């Protein structure tokens, strides 16, 4: 087994882009970051998946109660929210494109619009939560449901709050990360040769959107 002398210094700012010392070139670093983020998203699928599994078990056991409970959710707000998130994904994809093309102000604009749309989503969600609180549909001692299987309906709402709550938490984290990206963009950190964080956080953002794409019909459209 022979070896080639590694004449390059530990960190190389090659003409193709800067990369960390453990990588041979920036392409390898880029591929590693992409694979790493997709693997992380796989863990998130399973994290949410536990809730989806529990939801499936109970919905198949109590279809009528779940259907009845689902009709208490605000379809209009839910639909608007879905549209808002889809638009935010479009905006995020455009942000990545702006970074690839080296268009700094477009990048900043799209990052901002993505974050704003995310905030709009959260505001609408918060409004829905407040409504549910006033309607006494929050599980716990204050829960009141006017229907035959009120205890099974309470299960529905437990899952509703757990699943949308966990989703909202992920949205908040996403918005914080977008804010960091906006600051870094202002500091001129990104360009065509290096914009890996924009892409990887973009992947995360799209994933959170995909979760909602499944949550919406599962929670809001059980039985209309």
């Amino acid at each position, binding site marked *: 087994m022979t070896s080639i*002398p590694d004449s390059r210094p*530990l960190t190389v700012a090659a003409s193709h882009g800067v990369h960390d010392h453990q990588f041979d070139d920036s392409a390898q670093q880029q591929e590693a970051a992409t694979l790493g983020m997709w693997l992380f998203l796989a863990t998130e699928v399973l994290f949410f998946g*536990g809730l989806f599994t529990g939801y499936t078990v109970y919905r198949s056991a109590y279809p009528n109660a779940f259907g009845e409970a689902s009709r208490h959710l605000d379809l209009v707000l839910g639909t608007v929210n879905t549209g808002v998130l889809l638009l935010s994904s479009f905006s995020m994809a455009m942000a990545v494109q702006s970074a690839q093309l080296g268009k700094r102000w477009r990048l900043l604009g799209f990052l901002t619009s993505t974050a704003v749309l995310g905030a709009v989503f959260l505001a609408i969600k918060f409004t829905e939560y407040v409504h549910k609180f006033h309607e006494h549909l929050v599980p716990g001692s204050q829960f009141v449901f006017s229907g035959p299987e009120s205890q099974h309906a309470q299960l529905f709402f437990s899952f509703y709050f757990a699943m949308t709550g966990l989703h909202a938490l992920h949205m908040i984290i996403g918005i914080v990360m977008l804010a960091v990206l906006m600051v870094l963009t202002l500091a001129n950190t990104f360009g065509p040769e290096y914009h890996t964080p924009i892409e990887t956080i973009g992947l995360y953002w799209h994933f959170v959107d995909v979760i909602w794409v499944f949550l919406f019909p599962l929670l809001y459209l059980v039985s209309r």
Partner: protein
Amino acid sequence: MTHANVPENYLNASWGWRSWLLTRDHKRIALLYLISITLFFIVGGFFALLIRLELLTPAGDLVQAETYNKLFTMHGLIMIFFFLIPSIPSVLGNFLIPLMIGARDLAFPKLNLLSWYIYIIGGVFTLAAVVTGGVDTGWTFYTPYSSTYANSNVILTALGIFITGFSSILTGLNFIVTIHKMRAPGLTWLRLPLFIWAHYATSLIMVLGTPVLAISITLILLERSFHSGIFDPKLGGDPLLFQHLFWFYSHPAVYIMILPGMGVVSEIVTCYSRKKIFGYTFVALSSLAIAALGFLVWGHHMFVSGASPFAGMVFSMLSFLVAIPSGIKVFNWTATLYKGSISFDAPMLYALGFIGLFTIGGLTGLFLATLAVDVHVHDTYFVIAHFHYIMVGGAVMAYFGGIHFWWPKITGRLYPEVWARIAALIVFIGFNLTFFPQFLLGYLGMPRRYHAYPEEFQVWNVMSTAGASILGLGYLIPIIYLLWSLRYGRVATENPWNAMGLEWQTPSPPPESNFAATPIVTEEAYSYDIHT
């Protein structure tokens, strides 16, 4: 022992607290883990000691029942989450994976350091729970006791475990990306050391399984805080939903604990037989098979819980299947030994012990996978003996074997061989004396998690406690001489065992960037036949 002209290596490259606590060097991070898990091992061992002391007498006279519940809960939680799961991957895996594949570091060094900090924070939460009253639910946190009725520190403990889980996930993620993307030129998949295959398979389990543990803990936290009713039968909830989610992770978790050990054994057995592994491809792929099949068998923990008998039959059959790839490994190790030039150095003693004891533990798993037999021995000491044979007789022995085998590489010093062999023998004897009687106890009907038992079981319990003291001694001796060797051990050369593998082609201890020049690989692994 000399200090003059010590070449620069990862240990002396920089000094001071910050150079260690803010390091990104995978080798230093491995040592941070080594120290932390040793401390947790001692804490977990202390609880084991108290358990065995209580069980010396039939009456529950050392501690109250509630306290005893806390002892076995905390013993289990600490040993599993803070010792076994991180042990080989976070210490040996972190140190050796980049070296074995000819890389300068892992793919994500900062993430690696974060993993350690997450582990420590989770550990602090859990230890806080321990010292402020403990938790008594059993490490399995079954609902509805844990979610509704327990009066102990469930939330604090659950948070600690939840946090630590992310350490596992990030480590696995790091390993997978590293192994895919950073192998040296010429190092194709089928030339990789089996240690790498084992850690790759382990990392798949960490990444795919641990999130489900996280969500099951989240549900307990929600249930306990908001009484949401998800596991409450009065609201139509099913406590078994928790068990499904919990065991979906916790069964593959046992493969997280054993697969790295199997990787270590493959490295040791080949070196001390001076032979290449028999059936390399089968051993490599069997690691993947164990990882995959291991996800399909979790229901065998629930045979008598009230789950459907039909599901029981499905899970029983799948559980028999998962024994096959493990059996393949044992056969292949044995075939490797056949006509090999065997030396009985300490690492080899540990590896041989592993092969025998893991086989016994694994075979008794088949007893438990058999529905009718499990009805009799479920929740008895038979189960405890089964998993301790695998976890202690298997995983811990592999861990000690690996620590000894790679000690010169990690520290630049040799351990004292005579003491090491003595300690290995003491561990082997102490282990069997501790746990073999427990098979008998379980079969005779002694239930687990009880601090009192009928008179007729005392003789076996006394034997078990006696064995435990010997085992404890066997673990203490290496801690002493390994520390001693740091200052007084013989200085090690680059390759004191004449072993194959890229990690032995660089100085002991290695320089910070691992290799002076990127290696190029042109041979199969374990080419002992070519390089005698």
